[in-house]
């Protein structure tokens, strides 16, 4: 059966652990402050719920975990919670043939151009696939 490839992204010097599987490693103190969520973060949450929910069942939460866990250590450690989510949602809807990569990239370019035209800042950063 063809499908997404099984792979392990390992954490350096951690004896075979996957990048995300850090329970028990030293990461310093935990920031327990409450954070306000940005609008895009709330939208990401809503999108995920709609995509995995009973109407669509486009993929499972397990699939989402897998995409997040397939990140290399550098990307895994420098991206925030919802950055991991939105990348996973993007990759999974492409994986499941709901939209294709070109459509997403064209739309991103369109939104960026629109923001720049109205003098708003658009991040140049690209989230690796």
């Amino acid at each position, binding site marked *: 059966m063809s*499908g997404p490839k099984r792979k*392990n992204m390992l954490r350096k010097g951690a004896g075979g*652990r*996957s990048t995300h599987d850090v*329970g028990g490693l030293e990461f310093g103190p935990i920031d327990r402050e409450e954070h306000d969520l940005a609008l895009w973060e709330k939208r990401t949450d809503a999108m995920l719920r709609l995509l995995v929910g009973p109407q669509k*069942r486009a993929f*499972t939460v397990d699939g989402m975990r897998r995409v997040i866990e397939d990140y290399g250590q550098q990307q895994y450690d420098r991206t925030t919670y919802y950055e991991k989510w939105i990348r996973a949602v993007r990759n999974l809807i492409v994986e*499941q043939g709901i939209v294709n990569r070109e459509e997403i990239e064209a739309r991103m370019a369109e939104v960026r151009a629109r923001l720049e035209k109205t003098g708003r800042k658009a991040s140049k950063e690209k989230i690796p696939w």
Partner: protein
Amino acid sequence: MVKTRAKAGHNAAPEGRFGPGDRVRVAARDALGHCRTPWYLRGKTGVIASIHGTFRDPERLAYHQPGLPAQVLYKVRFKQSEVWGRYDGPASDQLEADIFEYWLEPLK
């Protein structure tokens, strides 16, 4: 597009290989790809606290497969002092984790 049926399909009283009170060891093996058994529990010894039921297998669901046959999921109790080696808390401290049957080995 591969449709994954996300219906839990879980059975509250499954035929499990283990029962409450049984001593078990978490397999000390590597997993290829998505896996819900944390690294820090691999090879550790615990006791079955309860049986959650049977659930579709997340190690397959993660790859758009149906996740069948469903697998028995246990709540396993570990001594903190055994899990962490250097543990500063009280010796009676315990930790509970949900572990699928195919990750557990019987222990006499």
